[in-house]
């Protein structure tokens, strides 16, 4: 007889130790792809908030360069002499336009710069250079006092970061789209210190879906982004306020406000569109147009410095100071013109804060009128109407009432106003949508997206979601090779193929457990001895829905995709999460098209 079986060699020992750890992780921690996606969403939240903060700081620096003053734009503009008020936005517009003009050659990139387009109809990829051009241009517009919101470029930057991450990580299309959406949510959450609003804005407007598969990561991204941003700028809500309603009957004038705004919002949307068309007819280069836009804003700041900038400080003033109504009416009119001029001239940025200011000042004026008519005993502070007006106007222009009322709630953290806010937002939404089918955001999407809808996404097949080059071993692969593969990859299954790459079966990490106590087996066993012969496969032309069915009898996250049943050539793998995401996206698109 031969001698005692030799001592297990040290290499094999460490391999077995590694495998034991791997099995422990797989069985105890069990990270599913969705959980990993959640973690990435958190990373994106952090990165998005840092990018947002950097953008804010850069904007403040440019603002100082242009005005040599620090502070909110309304007071810095008020402190400037008239001629500088006139030219500062014009200079900003000129520079911002020149940047766009110079960056136009990046336009040919095959990716979009519009995060909404990237998420809803596109590949989930955002063009790097043209996005940076847009953001830099927006930075000069914002810093020079144009009537435009910071949130546009913030969201842009933050979704750009997540798109870069997606490209680097080589995620599948549905996941790229989801994570770019997470970037957008992070941008909004950090711009407004509003995590609920950020998650809901993206879920409601961009994705049109509240499926948990999608909403969960959005929540993760916006919470982390908010926490990060609060580290930099503090925890105060943007427009902290606390008001009391005087009587239950006060709800009646708020309904009136909702109705009024429901009719006014479509007019505002039309004003923006008319202005855009008018500027487009001017035979001028983009920088000249934006300079003219800047001049108009500058001229208006001479009348009322509150017009300058996104309107943040003006809203704070409306909520915390007593206003003489003609002064506010002047601001409202000037702000409308300034916003239309800024947008029409082609400046890049967000409409969110200007919209809020218009809603707030309309609400305040309405409140003043109600107070005059009904008396101070029944009606509360006109500032309450300003808040409700903000929400209602937002709901009516974005066509997303849930997001609007939550956003206003988060911006003010004033729970008292929630009842009139809810009612007015919903009423304004219903009226607005019956008059104007397009929201402030659907504009660009409808223009660019319509072409893609049917052909690309209506018929997503498994082949579109394929992840190529899965980890495989030959039928004769030995235990050492298989064990090493399990340690260096986080898959729980390794696919077994023959020489022609035809799928034969799969080895489960859980089945391998039997090896771990018996090092003797290491040299005896080959892949074929322990693989599962009846492992489910998916043919590449299967529909997403049918493919998902295949997962019902399988506890794994991925299944192999084969060419067809006879040859069973292994093409790649498809993950359950991707299928669910693809379905969720598609369902949201289906409802949108109705």
């Amino acid at each position: 007889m031969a001698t005692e079986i030799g001592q297990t060699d040290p290499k094999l020992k460490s391999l077995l130790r590694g495998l034991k750890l791997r099995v422990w992780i797989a069985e105890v921690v069990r990270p599913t792809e969705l959980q990993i996606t959640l973690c990435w969403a958190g990373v994106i939240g952090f990165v998005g908030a840092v990018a947002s903060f950097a953008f804010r700081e850069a904007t403040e620096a440019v603002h100082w360069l242009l005005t040599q003053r620090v502070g909110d734009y309304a007071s810095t503009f008020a402190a400037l002499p008239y001629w500088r008020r006139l030219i500062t936005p014009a200079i900003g517009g000129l520079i911002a336009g020149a940047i766009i003009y110079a960056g136009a050659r990046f336009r040919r990139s095959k990716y979009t710069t519009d995060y909404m387009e990237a998420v809803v109809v596109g590949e989930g990829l955002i063009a790097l250079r043209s996005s940076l051009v847009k953001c830099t241009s927006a930075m000069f517009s914002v810093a020079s006092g144009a009537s435009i919101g910071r949130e546009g470029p913030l969201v842009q930057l933050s979704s750009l970061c997540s798109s870069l991450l997606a490209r680097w990580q080589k995620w599948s299309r549905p996941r790229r789209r989801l994570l770019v959406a997470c970037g957008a949510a992070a941008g909004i959450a950090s711009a407004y210190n509003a995590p609920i609003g950020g998650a809901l804005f993206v879920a409601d407007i961009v994705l049109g879906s509240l499926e948990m598969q999608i909403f969960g990561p959005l929540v993760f991204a916006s919470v982390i982004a908010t926490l990060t941003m609060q580290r930099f700028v503090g925890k105060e809500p943007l427009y902290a306020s606390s008001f009391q309603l005087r009587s239950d009957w006060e709800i009646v004038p708020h309904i009136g406000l909702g109705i009024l705004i429901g009719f006014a919002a479509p007019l505002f949307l039309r004003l923006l569109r008319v202005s855009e068309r008018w500027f487009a007819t001017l035979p001028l280069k983009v920088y000249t147009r934006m300079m003219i836009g800047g001049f108009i804003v500058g001229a208006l700041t001479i009348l009322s410095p509150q017009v300058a900038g996104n309107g943040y400080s003006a809203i704070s003033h409306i909520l915390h100071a007593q206003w003489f109504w003609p002064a506010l009416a002047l601001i409202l009119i000037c702000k409308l013109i300034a916003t239309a001029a800024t947008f029409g001239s082609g400046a890049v940025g967000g409409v969110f804060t200007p919209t809020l200011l218009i809603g707030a000042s309309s609400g305040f004026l309405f409140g003043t009128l109600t107070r005059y008519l009904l008396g101070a005993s029944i009606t509360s502070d006109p500032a309450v109407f300003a808040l409700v007006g903000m929400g209602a106007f937002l709901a009516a222009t974005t066509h997303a009432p849930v997001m609007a009322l939550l956003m206003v709630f988060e911006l003010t953290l004033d729970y008292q106003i929630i009842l009139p806010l809810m009612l007015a937002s919903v009423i304004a939404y219903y009226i607005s949508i019956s008059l104007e089918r397009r929201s402030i955001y659907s504009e660009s999407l409808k223009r660019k997206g319509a072409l893609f809808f049917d052909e690309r996404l209506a018929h997503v097949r498994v082949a579109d979601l394929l992840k190529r080059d899965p980890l495989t071993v030959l039928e004769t692969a030995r235990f050492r090779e298989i064990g090493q593969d399990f340690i260096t990859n986080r898959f729980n299954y390794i696919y077994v193929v023959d020489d022609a790459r035809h799928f034969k079966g799969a080895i489960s990490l859980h089945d391998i457990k039997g090896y771990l106590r018996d090092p003797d087996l290491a040299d005896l066993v080959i892949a074929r001895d322990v693989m599962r012969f009846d492992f489910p496969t998916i043919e590449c032309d299967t529909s997403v829905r049918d493919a998902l069915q295949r997962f019902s009898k399988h506890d794994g996250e991925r299944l192999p995709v084969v060419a067809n049943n006879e040859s069973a050539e292994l093409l790649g793998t498809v993950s359950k999460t991707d299928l669910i995401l693809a379905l969720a996206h598609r369902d949201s698109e289906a409802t949108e098209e109705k």
Partner: protein
Amino acid sequence: MAVSFHDLFQPAQVVLELRAKTQNDAVREIVERLHAAKRVEDDDAFADAVMEREARSSTNTGDGVAFPHARTDLVEELVLGIGRSKNGVKFGGPDALVHLIFLVGVPQRLVTDYLVCVGTIARIVRPKAKREQLFNAATADDLVDILRNGALELQ
């Protein structure tokens, strides 16, 4: 665990002294015994399957023991045939002659049972003293008792 080693080791499935001198003959001799014990219907096909697997990679451990096997639906449950050769059989891979052959048949649906079965037997025969006991066992019943006791000791 679904594998009952008491039932797995059966005296009727032991060839106490193999006549075969070659790997192929040894496998066929053990498979014939399994056929006689009504554990395998199609003995030729089963032996072919075992030899086909053996051709891909030898199961000779180099310690005088080999574990030829096949995962095939020619068997309905886990079956084990045992062959002993005092003179030794030349068995693929390493040069060392093989004195104990544990031939395993596993249906395709059972994934882990093969590992459990081979792993346990490998541990039973790991001590040199155990292998010598098996080598010297006078009857098939004695040999099976040694194995059954060995399995109990491991538990």
